[in-house]
């Protein structure tokens, strides 16, 4: 089919899905079928676009000119293609998981949940394929607004507070910093199009470049650079499927994706390397990386620990961009994919544990591994991938990031990457270790889903739809390790 048509379809499919979900809200089975069919169709669309991009095609389309010089434009390049593949592929898995989780927990207002989810995915597609900063900004805001009802889903006071922090920080940074940065770029460069090699060379005084970069980096609140990271832990009040797909994949990756886009296509790696405008960012990202890992160590709530782990992992990518070397940028881009697979596994496992036992604190999870072996096995695989051990995909992106640091001559950054990997071990492995090796404190209260299971000692897993998806993504970590050259081949054109 015509690639331009497919490009539009990536936006329209999830939106049409959202509409259908809203219309079928009174019939849950049909509604979930709509979600699944939409996600599969979207993945197929993205897949056929991927073939086109791999063959060297660069589909583009201008949807509408909003005001003179500002147009809503879509254009595909490898980085966006990767992000779209990750988001749309994992949406299928996560939709299965959502069904298991939302029904297993008997959550209310599921129609709103699925509608907002589909709109959020449409926004993520828009971000992935945005042809200029203006379009990207529009979808960036749309993503924030469409995920707000998901964060506030439970409608408790805690959820409202979390959602306020979420909205306040994301809207605040984007309107307060990102918008002026974009307007500054517009005034200086006269264009907002993403252009290979950047658009700012010779347009902005090199002395001011670090400030413009700072406006961008802190403006992209979704990248969770400290001190604007608080929204991510706050968003953990959302149901776990939201945390899994949006706050481990779509939303946060939209943030770091935007960071990479800005670094590669607005500033240009060479310009940053020549002027050293991103040197301060190396420091800030390194600090976030280590500090968030340390905070994660102190968290007993499993989802909070994972959230801080995400903050830390996002900074890997920002740091890769800040290095302004080919390998650094490439590593950052690869880390979008590998971390997504690993982290969504971990979150889905945390949700499965919650559905089966209603436990949220790690200290209460002693001995659970023997009851939920599949969940815990998937968790272990995801954790090892995040730590970066072969034969799991996570090792590759860390490898490239490390090479990027060496290229930049910053051995200290290599050391930081290594230290952080050790911290990953320290905060992820105990979860698994407690699950398998500690004795369970008391007989587990029987939850609704596991009522029919044999008495203590037997396997009491969460519903199948909660357990299968994390196992699938864990297997994905393994498969991706062996087929990583395909991803690298996709991203090759990104760097000279």
């Amino acid at each position, binding site marked *: 089919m015509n690639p331009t048509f497919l490009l539009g379809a990536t936006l329209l499919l999830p939106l049409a899905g959202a509409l259908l979900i809203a219309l079928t809200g009174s019939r849950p089975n049909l509604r979930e079928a709509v979600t699944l069919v939409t996600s599969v169709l979207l993945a197929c669309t993205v897949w056929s676009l991927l073939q086109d991009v791999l063959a060297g095609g660069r589909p583009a389309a201008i949807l509408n000119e909003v*005001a*003179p010089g500002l147009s*809503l434009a879509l254009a595909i390049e490898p980085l966006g293609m990767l992000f779209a593949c990750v988001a749309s592929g994992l949406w299928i898995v996560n939709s299965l998981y959502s069904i298991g989780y939302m029904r297993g927990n008997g959550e209310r207002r599921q129609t709103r949940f699925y509608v907002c989810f589909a709109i959020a995915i449409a926004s993520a597609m828009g971000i992935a394929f945005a042809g200029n900063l203006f379009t990207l900004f*529009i979808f960036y805001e749309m993503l924030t*607004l469409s995920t707000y009802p998901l964060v*506030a889903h439970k409608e408790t006071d805690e959820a409202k507070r979390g959602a306020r922090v979420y*909205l306040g920080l994301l*809207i605040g940074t984007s309107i307060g910093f990102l918008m002026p940065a974009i307007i*500054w770029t517009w*005034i200086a460069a006269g264009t907002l199009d993403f252009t290979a090699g950047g658009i700012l060379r010779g347009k902005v005084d090199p002395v001011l470049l670090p400030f413009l970069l700072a406006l961008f980096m802190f403006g992209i609140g979704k990248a969770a650079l400290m001190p604007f990271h608080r929204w991510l832990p706050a968003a953990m009040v959302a149901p776990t499927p939201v945390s899994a797909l949006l706050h481990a994949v779509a939303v946060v990756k939209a943030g770091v994706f935007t960071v990479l886009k800005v670094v590669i296509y607005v500033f240009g790696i060479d310009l940053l390397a020549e002027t050293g405008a991103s040197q301060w960012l190396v420091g800030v990202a390194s600090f976030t990386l280590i500090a968030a890992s340390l905070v994660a160590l102190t968290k007993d709530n499993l989802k909070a620990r994972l959230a801080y782990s995400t903050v830390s992992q996002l900074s890997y990518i920002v740091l890769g961009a800040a290095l302004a070397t080919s390998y650094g940028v490439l590593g950052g881009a690869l880390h979008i994919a590998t971390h997504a697979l690993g982290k969504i596994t971990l979150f889905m496992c945390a949700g499965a544990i919650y559905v089966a036992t209603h436990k949220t604190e790690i200290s209460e999870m002693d001995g659970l591994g023997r009851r939920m072996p599949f969940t815990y096995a998937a968790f272990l695989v995801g954790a090892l991938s995040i730590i970066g051990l072969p034969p799991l995909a996570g090792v590759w992106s860390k490898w490239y990031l490390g090479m990027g640091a060496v290229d930049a001559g910053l051995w200290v950054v290599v050391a930081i990457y290594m230290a952080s990997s050790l911290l990953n071990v320290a905060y992820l492995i105990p979860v698994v270790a407690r699950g398998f090796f500690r004795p369970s404190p008391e007989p587990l209260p029987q939850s609704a889903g596991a009522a029919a299971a044999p008495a203590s000692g037997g396997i009491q897993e969460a519903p199948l739809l909660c357990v299968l998806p994390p196992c699938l993504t864990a297997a994905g970590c393994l498969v991706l390790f062996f087929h990583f050259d395909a991803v690298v081949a996709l991203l090759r054109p990104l760097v000279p």
Partner: protein
Amino acid sequence: MSAALSALSLHLPILQVVVPLFAAPVCFLLRRGLVSWAFATLVSWAAFVTSVLLLRAVMADGTIHYEIGGWAAPWGIEYVIDATNAIVLVIVAGIGAVVTPYARVSVAAELPANQHGLFYTAYLLCLAGLLGVAITGDAFNVFVFLEIMSLSSYILVVAGAGMDRRALTATYNYLVMGTVGATFFVIGVGLLYMVTGTLNIADLARLIPALQDNRTVHVAFGFIVVGMGLKLALFPLHTWLPNAYTYAPSAATAFMAATSTKVSVYVLIRFLFTVFAPTYGFMALTLDYVLLPLALAGMTAATVAAIYQYNIKRMLAYSSVAQLGYMVLGISYGSVEGLTAAVLHLFNHALMKGALFLALGCVMLRVGTVTIDGVRGLGRQMPWTMAAFVAGGLSLIGVPLTVGFISKWYLVTAALDDSRWWIAGVILASSLLSVIYVWKVVESAYLREPPAGRAVREAPLSMLIPTWVLVLANIWFGIDADLTVGVARTAAMGLLGVAP
């Protein structure tokens, strides 16, 4: 037939004003509520069509001059329509045409039956006054229409006394402040007449450059700026506005909030840039040291005040004061970019405030109160109304794909163009603060349970459709702003005498 039409099209400028003006007494004679409503609807639609035709003619052929009774300017009264007032005419007549169909149910619910005819009479007079202020090219004529508009809007506000007697004091306050404003304006015009001997705006513009060191001209300038500042609710002269908007009937609030202050902003623009010119020393000082600080102070102070409001109508009224600050800010730049942003925001703000107040009118009809607690749980009970409110609120905040975003974009661009970073900062900070008050309503409507036993239905279609027309206009002109930006830029260039 076509000859008659072309003859008619020659006289569009006068028809724009005369039709609603003469329709008002007819409306009064009709007496019966429903009949006078139907008549007012017809008239307001005719006015809208006229204004659109005028805008098209102006954009195609340039400025239109119309001499009343064939008396040549500057002796006779002249109507002059360029891009600036053509767009104001479209705003006023457009909002008027949207609000009248809406008013039937809303007014019937909020006013006693014997006042309906009077309400529509005052409404049409107000419309005629607003259109007259915008269209005329004669300074004294501006005052005349200003008074028609003001007197009729006092009636519109006081019509709310049946529901809440505080409307009486609100109107009294509005009356005093409004009269002071109009008097100041006419004193200024009188002083200008004293030194120039003319009242025609174009003639004034021709004569004043030679007199720019004349102290009387300076005093006249001061009176006019302060007078219009009162009329347009420039902080800190805004104190009449929150109460007037809060206690007026819903339809009147929506109409006035979207139009009357806008027309005053237009008069200010007209006098600042056409009659006087930013090249004069005293004028540049006024822009930089009076209007700019007051605009910034209004933007922040009124926004903060809005956050603390419990009554949502009053919250939006304070928000209007803040938004007027944005317009005055654009004016105070004195540049093409700034004026473009100001004119653009004039149009855009009418759309968003119109939509918001109309949505509130729906709430008023069904729930009987428009407080933060009153709307709780309404997200599910009145989904279309609250969705309209959310869309209008997002536009107010300046979320992309709404007109609010376009306004913010141009305001910030204009500030950065002059390298005034801190102003851009204040604009963005104030729009972030507006998130807080909009979200207070959103949280209450969507994340709280409705009070037990309150069963409300969705508002009737006759009210929902006008509301959604404005909401969709918010989105439409947010996605396709070529037209509005183009008109605003033409207007700004015309005002500053810059060749395109």
